[in-house]
Structures are given as C-alpha cells and as structure tokens.
C-alpha cells in the first residue's frame, strides 16, 4: 500500500489543527447541513452561504471548542442561527418591496426541481412551516427533518427537552390554524 506522506500524520490522541479539523468535518457534514439549510430557506445559494459561514465560525472558534466531538452540534446550531438571520433579512426585504409578491404566494423553494417534484400540498405545508416562530420552526426541523431525538434537538437549540416538546406542540397548533385558513 503506497499511501502519500504517511509520516505527516498527527500522533494518536493529538487534537487536529483548526484547518484540519474543520476540513474533515466539512467533508463529512457539509452536504447534509446544506440540505437542512436549503429546506429551511428554500434557496440553495443562501443555504450554501449559511453553511460556509457556520464552518467559518467553527474555524475561528476552534481553539475555544472544548471537545471537537461537539463540533457537529455547534455546526447545526450555527446553521439554525444563520437560517434565522437569512429569513429575517428576507422578510425585511419583502416588506420594503411592496411590489414583491406577498409571502404567502412565494414558492416554498426557489428551485426548478422543487417546483416540479413537490406537490402543492407539500409546498403549502413547508411554506407554512417557514412562517412559524423561530423556535417552533427549528424544533420541527430538528425533530421531523433531521430525525433528532428531543434531547439531541435540545442540545442543538440550547434549550431544555421540555421546551422542545412544547415548541413542537405549539408549532403543530399554529400550523393547523394556518393550513385551515389557507384551505
């Protein structure tokens, strides 16, 4: 087996440098995180920017990360924060531009694939999810999109498991109201 530069390996147990660690995490998780941000935002370019910013933030704060094993939780949390900021910026832009289509009439995804692959029902539900309060939307995404447990979602959101449960319950109630009104 002729591996390259085998003598350049870190010693066992050695903490990887920031660029090494972040690059490896990127290789392992970037696609999944971009998918998460894409579903939350509906726009691939913005989703990629949010994820890039999250990894950039991890890179800057690498030395302050107590345990590299927590890096994925940190990244998920950063992506949620980035999506929240992007959605708010998007909402501000829509308010400024009266000529723009009303939020409810915007498609759930700025994507040609989405337009043809998602049924109207699914687009309607996902658009409604995007109008939820931040915490409710994020709890739903972590539980139902990523399939995290309540405890895992709580760790990502930095809140208690009980708060995650109540956020989901309220989200379902709010969605029921929104979807009923729309139908």
């Amino acid at each position: 087996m002729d591996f390259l530069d085998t003598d350049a390996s870190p010693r066992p147990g050695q903490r990887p440098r920031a660029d090494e660690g972040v690059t490896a995490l990127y290789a392992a998780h970037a696609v999944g995180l971009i998918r998460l941000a894409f579903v939350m935002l509906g726009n691939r370019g913005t989703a990629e920017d949010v994820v890039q910013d999250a990894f950039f933030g991890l890179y800057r704060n690498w030395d302050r990360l107590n345990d590299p094993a927590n890096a994925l939780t940190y990244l998920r949390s950063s992506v949620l924060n980035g999506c929240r900021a992007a959605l708010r910026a998007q909402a501000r832009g829509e308010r400024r531009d009266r000529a723009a289509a009303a939020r409810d009439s915007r498609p759930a995804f700025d994507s040609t694939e989405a337009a043809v692959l998602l049924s109207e029902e699914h687009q309607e539900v996902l658009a409604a999810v995007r109008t939820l309060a931040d915490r409710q939307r994020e709890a739903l995404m972590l539980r139902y999109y990523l399939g995290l447990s309540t405890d895992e979602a709580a760790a990502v959101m930095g809140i208690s498991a009980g708060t995650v449960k109540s956020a989901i319950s309220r989200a379902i109630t709010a969605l029921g109201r929104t979807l009923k009104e729309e139908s």
Partner: protein
Amino acid sequence: MNSVEGRVRAAMSAAVDLADREIRSAPPLRLPPAPAPGGRRPRAPRRWIRWAAPLTAAAVVVALAVSLVLIRDVQNGGPVTQGPATSTAPVGPAGPDGVPRYYVAISQQRGVVVGDSVAGTILAKVAPPTHKGYTTFFKSVTAAADDRTFVVLAETYPDSVIKSPAGIQKSAVTASWYELRLAPGTADPASLTLLPLPRMVTTGSDVGAEFATALSGSGRELAVSTVTAAGLAVKVYSVATGKLLHDWTTSDPSLSLTDSYTQGLNGQPSLTWIDGDRVLAVETASATQKSTSKNPFLGFGAKDVVRELTVAGPATGDLVADGKVVWDEQTWEYPTNLLQSCTGERGEMRLISADGTTVGCFAVTGPGTNPNLSFLTYPLETGPAVAAKATVEYGVTHMAQKGISTNQVMWISPSGDAIVGAWTTYAAGTLEDAANGLHIGVMSHGTFTPLRFPVGFDQEANVSTITW
C-alpha cells in the same frame, strides 16, 4: 398522530427527498489565512466557486418548435457547430494500464473539451449547436472502446425558461444525442453529428426526468435510461439508424422519479455494457426505511442494486422481472463498514468493468476528523461476503492535513484491475486551490501513475465528467 402532524411529517419526508436530489455535493470549503495574534478576524467569503456543480438540472423546457429544428438537423445530416481546435497532437499509444489516451469532458461553457491525457494537451473545444430562441447544454458523455468514438447527451431549453425558471412547471426538456468522432493529429480533430435517435421530450409529470446514456464498446448501440413519474425505462437504440432494438420498463415505485429516493440516473455511469456488449448492467439507488438504531446511529437508508439485462433476449420486457440481480447492498447515511462507505452517499460514483466482474469506487473513512481516502475495487456479486473482498487500489491518508476536498472514480479497466481516480486539494489556510491541486491518475495495487492535464483544467471543464 393528528392530521396536521401527519401532513408535516409527509411534507418533511418530501423535503428530504428533494434536498437529496438537489444537493448532491458541496462546493469546496474556503478557509482564510490563519489570523495573526491580536489581528482582526477575516470575514467569511460570501460566494464559492462551484466548479463541479452540474448545470441547473431541473426540468425545463422545450417545445414542438425546437423538436422541429432538431429534426431538420437530422434531415440535413452532417456535422454541426464546432469550435476551432486549440492544438493538434500526434496519434500515440494508450496511457498507463491501458487507459485510453483521448478523453472528452463537459466544459464550463456548455460544450465539450477534447483532450489527450498522455500528452496533457487540449485537442479541441466543441460548442453545442445553436438554434435561435433555444439554448442547448451538453450534459454527459459516453465512450466506445476504440478511443475515437463518443456520444454526447444534449438537453435543449427555450431561452425564456432559462432566464425565468419560475415558469418551468408547464415546460419540458428535449434530450438528443450527438456522436463526437475524434481524429487526433488532423486539422479537424473532432466532428459532431446529430444521431438519428428519437428525441425525448419530457412534459407534464415527467418534467425533471433524468437521462443516462451508455455507448456499447463497439459503438453500434446506445443504451438510454429514463427515470420518470411512470418509472424506470431502459432502451437500446441502433446508433446508425436510430431504431429501437430493446425496451425494458418497470413501474416499481422505488425506481420512479416521484415516488422514490432514487437519485436519478443522470450523471452517473449507471448503465454499463458488459460481457462483449451482450449484457447491460443497470445500477439504481432507492430509499429504504430510515434506521431506528441509535447505537450505532445509521440515519437514512438506501439500496444500491445492479441488475443485468441480456440483450439477446426478447425485445421488450419488465426490467425488474427480467433483470438478474448481481449486486445488492444496503447502505446508510452513516456507514458502518468500508463497503457501505463505498456505495453510500459519499461514494456515489461507482463503475463496473466491461467484463462484468468488478465494481470500482472510493471511500472516505476514519480516523475521526482527519480521515483517509481509499480507491477500491470489489467483486460484482451479491451476498455478505462481498464486504470482505475489497482491494485497495490506492489510498491517501490524512485528508484534512492535505486539504483534500473532492474525490471521484472516473474509469475502470475492462478487467477491473485498474481504475482512474481523482482528488483535488487546496492550499491549506488559503482561499485558493493549490496550483497543482488536481490529481488524476491510474491506480492499481497501491501505485499511482499520474495522467496529464493542462494547468487550470478544473476551471476549464467539469472534472467529474471526464470520459475515456
């Protein structure tokens, strides 16, 4: 579960499928230089270079008008638009381990680039045909065994749709195929001719259909697969006449466009002619139930299946019933062994040797945050014993240290004893690719023999589409 929760779960499930289809790779990570102590923190770069991004897939376009334009081309025959050759090269021997010398790749400008991977030169750049009001993209390439005959899949869209994707729901895409003949060392090193195959126009629920194409070793037959709302279909056409020779279909929902996780067959070498062009190997990937296991956490599941279809059999048939399953691997989002790493999401490119014995792939595996990259071959067979039969053709340790961002397998020798693999690196701690960051070479039993490409080739062409 109340009805609202059910609707949310169903919508999320659909979103998972959509995201899986739409986001298949990430752009290279760009890290800034390490900040000086006490210095200002650098700002995150806002946009990335998406060098390997496929042309906006999705559905789109074309109507009767463009079909008529294309039909006129068929009637006229002869070569169509071609760019000037950038250089000529002498006809020479094949590359190491028998890898064909000449290749074709999709360029970053919608056309194709023809090159010589022994001399490291570009022979020609060929633009797609032009029709007023329409835009054609070359999408994928397939090669015969003679190192001179290639077929390019073209997709044509109305300009109006390209500029305004919001209106695509009622539009269609027209797929057509061109033969690209190489004549290295001559004044006309590449000529393009529209093949007389029926164009495929996807409309209605089939918008978004995926195509894959495979030219037989002899160059006489072209296999085309389509994944539509109705299901998966594989057709074999005569290159010379366009006549439909074989037609297999299935309505198995796990293989359809809308009802499955199937990533589509576009851009994957999922059709392979084997056994002297007597058998067609069809590879599919479909969703399975998500794992409920917490330890280990496996995530989403998928089935990677290869079926063999015998061309000597009846002209029509059921793809699933007639297909002989020769590869059947359950994979997970978080793989637990090397084979799953190879066939799972991160190893989405798999190649089958022309003798039908071997699968080539790559895997990224531990340890931890600084994993290793392995280029592997496995016997093409079913059963749990396959997992223990990996041959590591080449490996690169400590991907993070080396700044490796993208990996792929691109060619496998007819007997499966060598593969061509590639990886790219960027200079650690910088925002730019390393000057010599593209590594493409023949890998066999632990050795790496580099192939030659011009500096900056990855800016010129989509590396993942290089076809020998």
